[in-house]
Structures are given as structure tokens and as C-alpha cells.
């Protein structure tokens, strides 16, 4: 496969006596979509936070393009080209689309200490970049809150791509969306992939993962329980593995015994 952009080798993360992740080894290649699946409490959040620089791994190695890194903050990760789009913290509803796009990265012009925003340039870039992701905006001035949830995710993705992300971590981008909106976001996931970005797609929805994923990792109880490539994966297997096989059988019998009463 293509060159590996990001790699975790035998990573463990513990908080005091609680081991949230252990023995995690994942490979994320450029221009692919790597899906990390797991139910609630499987350790997905901890893994995202480790990847995005919020947490430091307790044990193991974190490699970016083959070089071991040691991030102290999400800003460090961002500087290394690893951008995370959090589901709810992506955008500021009342601000216009172009302002949201450039927030924290404003383009200025002027001389000496007198600097002001290059509004026209920022609006043009916003329009272009969103168009490149397949979003045709007529008016970058409208508040981003007027866009649908899926479109807002898309703007956040386009923003990460524009500011040089090599790795894009998407934290449950579809979990709060309806079917059609999810479809829109998945399309942008593929658009980002086509632009050569290594996408890490974290979800608990095997159907969404299967639509776009090239490689699948399954988390359960903080451990990597299964990994599959697209060539040897199928949706039933994914779903069954997700639900936790035996756990589900146990649950079924339990519920049935409750219903009988």
C-alpha cells in the first residue's frame, strides 16, 4: 500500500489505575480512509485524544512519517499537519462562513503595525476551497449557523485541508446527522481522501465506515480486537464484531428473561 503517514506502535494510555487503551498498533496511509470502530466505552475517545495531541501515550510509540513525535498540545499536532474535527466544537454559528473558515488563521494586509483583514482574498479562498470539496456557496457572508449540520462539518473539513492537514481526524462526524446529511459528509470524506489526505474516521456506525473505509480497526474494552482491509472485510462481519458477538447473545437472553416476567 501507499506510504504510511501516521503510525502507532503498541500504544498504551492509562489514567492512574485505569487502562483506557492498551496494545494499540495502527497504521494510517496517505490517501486512504482508516476507520476506527467501537461501541461506547471502547476507548475511541482516548485514542482520538492521543492522536490529536490532547493526551500523551503512557507507553508505546507515535510516529508521523516514520519519525517519532511527542506532542504536548493539540497545537503541536496541528503544526505537524494532524487536524482534528470535533463533532460539536467545529464552528461558531453566528459568524459568517468565511470568518469561520479563517478563524485563528486570518490573512492580513497593510504596513508596519497597521494591519487589517484581507476580506476579499479570504472570501475568494473560502469559495474556492469549498467548491473543491464540492460545496457550491453563493454567499460566504451568511452565518454558518444557517448551514445544515453536514455542510458545517464539510466546511470544517475543507478548512483543515486548506491549512495543510496531512492527517484528518474526524470524531464521529455522522453520529448526530440524518441519513442524507451523513451521506453528504461521507462524500467529503472521500473528497479529502482524493486530495491525498490520510483520513481517520472514528465512528460507531459500521455501515458508514464500510461505505468509505479502506482499512478498519475494531476497538473493544480499550484493546484492538480486529483489523481488516477492505479486500477481506464484509459488512456483516463488521457489524457482528462491533456488537460484540457474545455480549449481544448474553444481552438477548437477559432481555428475554426480563420480558417474560
Amino acid at each position: 500500500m501507499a506510504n504510511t503517514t501516521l503510525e502507532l506502535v503498541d500504544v498504551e494510555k492509562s489514567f492512574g489505575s485505569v487502562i483506557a487503551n492498551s496494545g494499540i498498533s495502527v497504521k494510517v496511509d496517505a490517501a486512504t480512509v482508516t476507520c476506527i470502530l467501537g461501541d461506547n466505552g471502547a476507548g475511541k475517545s482516548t485514542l482520538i485524544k492521543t492522536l490529536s495531541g490532547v493526551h500523551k501515550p503512557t507507553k508505546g510509540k507515535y510516529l508521523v512519517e516514520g519519525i517519532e513525535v511527542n506532542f504536548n498540545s493539540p497545537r503541536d499536532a496541528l503544526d505537524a499537519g494532524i487536524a482534528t474535527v470535533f463533532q460539536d466544537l467545529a464552528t461558531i454559528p453566528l459568524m459568517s462562513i468565511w470568518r469561520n473558515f479563517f478563524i485563528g488563521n486570518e490573512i492580513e494586509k497593510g504596513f508596519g503595525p497597521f494591519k487589517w483583514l484581507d476580506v476579499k482574498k479570504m472570501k475568494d479562498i473560502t469559495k474556492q476551497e469549498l467548491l473543491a470539496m464540492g460545496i457550491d456557496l453563493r454567499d460566504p457572508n451568511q452565518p454558518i449557523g444557517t448551514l445544515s449540520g453536514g455542510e458545517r462539518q464539510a466546511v470544517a473539513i475543507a478548512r483543515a485541508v486548506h491549512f495543510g492537514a496531512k492527517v484528518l481526524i474526524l470524531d464521529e462526524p455522522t453520529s448526530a446527522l440524518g441519513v442524507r446529511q451523513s451521506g453528504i459528509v461521507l462524500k467529503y470524506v472521500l473528497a479529502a481522501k482524493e486530495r491525498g489526505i490520510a483520513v481517520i474516521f472514528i465512528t460507531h456506525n459500521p455501515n458508514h465506515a464500510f461505505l468509505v473505509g479502506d482499512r478498519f480497526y475494531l476497538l473493544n474494552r480499550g484493546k484492538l480486537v480486529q483489523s481488516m482491509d477492505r479486500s477481506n472485510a464484509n459488512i456483516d462481519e463488521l457489524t457482528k464484531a462491533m456488537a460484540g458477538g457474545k455480549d449481544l447473545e448474553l444481552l438477548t437472553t437477559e432481555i428475554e428473561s426480563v420480558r417474560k416476567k
Partner: protein
Amino acid sequence: MSTSPTTDERVKKASFLTRALRRTEVGALLGAIAIFILFTSTDTTGNFAKLPGIAGWTDIAAPIGIVAIAVALLMIAGEFDLSSGVMVGTTGLLVGVLVSKLGLNIWLAIIIGLVFAAGIGFINGFLVVRTKLPSFIITLATFFILKGANFALTMIITGSVRVTGVEKAAGYDSAKTIFASTFKVGDQNFQISLAWWLLLTILATFLLTRTKFGNWIFAAGGDQNAARNAGVPVARTKIALFMGTSVAAALVGIIFVLRLQGMQAGQGVGQEFYYIIAAAVGGTLLTGGAGSAIGASIGAIIMGMAYIGIPFSLWNSDWTSTFLGAILFSAVMINTYIGRKAAGGKR
């Protein structure tokens, strides 16, 4: 891409009117025009819409507007400053005491006053971002601390509740020219504070809409966490804005102490609500994230017109506050309604 263009078309359909109403200050401007027409028609002196009347209500509006602009910026960033009114008195008294009791040159006293105000603003801001307590509480505490200190220290230093004798200070004439002189339009004298107010409206509007810092103000008030994640220095932005309201209040204190040649210990107390009213009437959201400097200035104009228009109409001016309260309520109602309409019913 087969389905989204059609939905895009529906979302983007915005009439000129809707687009105009999306600007937060338009509601306030319509209100100001309505109140102008109201008082022009009820006016018994025939002067309300002429230069003498305009000089009157802009003179009331200017000191309110100067601070209201800074307060609006702070409110857009999601914070309140209740100590902005009392700061007017504190700075005026400080400058007055420095020149009348210590014999300082008034320019030096003005600089000390501005630096002192910036310091108080810094403390307000620092405490808000550090303790994460609501700014309402922290600045309410500052308000009462300063209010008490204004009275107590003025009594101790001057033996009365008033500082006087500012006009005898070295440099008084030049300082008065800058802060408290008048200029002529036609036959009518206008206060120089009007020029300060207009200048600040323009500067603040530029700052808010055309600079990086302005972007950060909106971001800090819109969603702190999202702003922080995007690399916006939220804490620094807020502290700077608290310093801004304090310094704006200090400017008004300096204008008053020079014009009145002295200052009462109670000056400015209660004004903080006028600033908040002006900002809110002007379309600044109390929860932060939206608003404008022009809106706050229009809000100040509305208050100035009410203060002059009510006596000009021979109404009982005891009711002025009631009138302003009703204006505040209806303006915020209308702004909210317009805001919802403009946002397409989404929020």
C-alpha cells in the same frame, strides 16, 4: 452532488430586505428614525430637529456612546462590565485630586488616570478569565468597591463630596481644547466629545469588522471552546476588552472633569446600565457573539433624543427612565425577532 444544489438554492434565497436586516444595527436605525419622527412631531419648541436640539441630544449621547461602544465590544465577546459607570467618577476624581491637591500638570494626571483605568480593567479581565466566575459578579464587586472608595477617599482628601479647582492646574487650557472645548456648526456650538464619539465609532467598527482582533472578539463570544480550538487567544482578547471599557470610561471621566472643572464623588454611578441599554438596543446580543459598534452608537442617540425630546414635548421628564425601559424591551424584542427571521428560523 446531485441533491445538494437544490437544497442550496433554497437555503441561499435571501431577499434584499432579509440581507439588510441581517445587519444587527438596522433594527436600531429604524427605531432611531421612528423616535426622531415621534419627537419632531410632538416637539413644542420647534428646535428638536434643528441645530440647537441636535447639539443638545448629541451632547447627552456622546458620553454614553463613547463607553457604550467599548461595552458593546465586551458584550460581543460574551462578558459584562458593571464597573464602567463608576470608572467615569473614579478617573475624574483621581485626575481632579492629582492636579488640585498634588499640583501635578494636568496632562500627567490624565496619563496617570488612563493607566490607572487600564489597570482596573486588567484586574477585572484577569479575574474573569482566571477564576471563571461570571463577569457580572466580578465587575459588580469592582463597582461597589470603587463606589465606596470614591466617596470615602474624596471625603478624606477634600473634606467634601466634591473635588474642585481643576481649572487652576498647569496645562488646563490645552487639555480643555482637546477634551472639553466646543466647535461651531452654523451658529450652534457642539461639544468636542461628539468628535471623540464619532472617531471611536469609526475606529471600533474598523477594529470589529476588519481586523484579526475583531474576528477574535466575535469568536470568543460565539463559542469560546471552538475559538480556543482554532487557536484564538480568548483570555488575552477578553482582558484587552475589559481594559477597553475601563479606558473608555476614563476618557469620559476626563472629559467631564475638564468641562465641569471638578467632579462629584457620585459621578457615573448608575451609568453602567445606560451603556448596556445602548449596546442592547443597538443589537448587541447579551449572550455574546453578535453586535456592532455603530449599533451601540445608535442606541446612545436614541437615549440622547429621549432625554431632550421628552422635555421639548412638555412631557413630565420624571418618566424618562420608564420611556427608556420600554424602548429597551421593544428594541430587544424586535432585534431578536429580526435575528430569527434573518437566520432563516434556525435560531
